[in-house]
């Protein structure tokens, strides 16, 4: 086995393990920490695919910003197990049905798909680097990029509107 393959398998093992821990952990804090570990491993996979920019941005945005807010909220709420009242039998059954359908769909998709063979001749190692990505985003994918930025702006304005204190509101 090549060293890169060993790295890949070890990384995949850790990724799956921490992803499973996210679901099975009893304590929500442990669950969040496992999710952070999962994001880290995903960044490792990006680096293995030579997408350095995506890896860094994944860590900054997901592991660095969003998960901090998750951890924040859960620490303040201090969830206990007796608070989990929403899981009735009906929701459990619905979850099983939906999950089963999702699994069947994915199995069918993966059986049907034909993975294109990697052509090592015209493989460009610089595809995932910042310069290439920027050129792609600002030339071929300009419209989707701008639309996504408008979407993010709308989300930001919405967040400010939600968080804004009305005239008569108390501080807390």
């Amino acid at each position, binding site marked *: 086995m090549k060293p890169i393959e060993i790295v890949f398998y070890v990384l995949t093992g850790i990724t799956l393990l921490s992803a499973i821990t996210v679901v099975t952990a009893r304590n929500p804090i442990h669950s969040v920490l496992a999710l952070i570990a999962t994001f880290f491993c995903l960044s490792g996979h990006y680096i293995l695919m030579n997408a350095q920019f995506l890896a860094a941005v994944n860590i900054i945005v997901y592991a660095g910003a969003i998960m901090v807010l998750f951890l924040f909220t859960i620490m303040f709420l201090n969830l206990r197990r007796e608070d989990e009242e929403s899981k009735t039998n009906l929701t459990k059954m619905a979850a099983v049905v939906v999950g089963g359908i999702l699994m069947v769909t994915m199995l069918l998709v993966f059986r049907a798909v034909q993975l294109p063979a990697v052509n090592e001749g015209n493989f460009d190692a610089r595809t995932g*680097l910042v310069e290439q990505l920027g050129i792609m985003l600002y030339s071929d994918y300009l419209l989707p990029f701008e639309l996504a930025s408008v979407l993010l702006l709308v989300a930001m304005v919405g967040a400010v509107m939600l968080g804004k204190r009305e005239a008569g509101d108390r501080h807390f």
Partner: protein
Amino acid sequence: MDLTIFIVKSIIILAVFGISLLIATYSTYVERKVAAFMQDRIGPDRAGPWGLLQPIADAGKMFFKEDFIPAQASKWLFILGPALAMLTALMSSAVIPFGDSIRFDNYDIPVQGIEINIGVLYIFGVVSLGVYGIMVGGWASNNKFSLLGAIRAASQNISYEVALGLSIIAILMMSGSLSVRAIVEQQAEAGFLGWNVFTQPLGFIIFLTCAFAECNRTPFDLPECETELVGGYHTEYSSMKLGFYLFAEYINMFVSSAFISSLYFGGYHYPFMEQISNALTNSLGAVTGHNVATAIGTAAFFGKIFFFIFFFMWVRWTVPRFRYDQLMNLGWKILIPLSVLNIIVSASGLLFNGMKYASWLIVIVATVLAIMSNSRAPKGQVSPQRS
């Protein structure tokens, strides 16, 4: 041969690691000496000549203290907290270019842990992870003061990261690269007046302020505010775990000083570097001369780093702590709009026949406004605080 490069790289990485630790160790000593100097005292002078062995004595004391874990604490997370703080603090020095390059035979090896083309983003990623050490430790202590300290640290770091990132964008626009080495080399080419502190004065001030906030240093050390929170997030910690938290702060200080020096103060560049380097290569030969020039550059870089570490300490004993709402107002309502304005003005300057000094416009206007509003205010009367 690859092995030679590998060995030299390993030596450089180990040296960077060792130097980070050494400088952090002696920062504790220097901090106490500087504090003593500022307050007209003598400071530590018992252990060794001039008290030089004081950090070692401190570390020994830390190791022999009782390592206490509170009964209700979450044990593994309690241990994980300081480990994470230390890990993230040490990771960030990897991409800082400490010097030009070492040359021997026909190898040319940069004095840097790793050279990646997303160096700035790497540092941001690591910095944004730094808060986990504090949060995990503060939560796992199962103490309300610790939790409050952790929450304060987290919200402060998130708030100031935004302004930190925005203030750098102007530099990225000028250099067109995310690699720290490329930014340093570009400043070296532009000469002394091309250092980013002269082209981006406003960005530098914003970045410096945010660096203080990210390191949890005074005047932004609210996470460990003794008067309100006992000891903040490390209230329950003792022994070397506490030592790790305190130590991580000093390593962060070193790394941010290095980062400020390389982004705004030309890194290993110093005035007349070209001429001195040429003279050295002429007199000592291409290989030795180049290496000596590199060593001088590295020394200049460390001089800058030491100045900024001193500056951190200087501010600590000069400026009192902010109140928490003042801290948040400063971050969100002043620094972020200012850095956005800085981006717009710098970008316009660059588009308008590549003028790099456009940022001075904001500084001049802001200074004039400040002087005008100050001269209009009635004397001897503090304007009431609105919130």
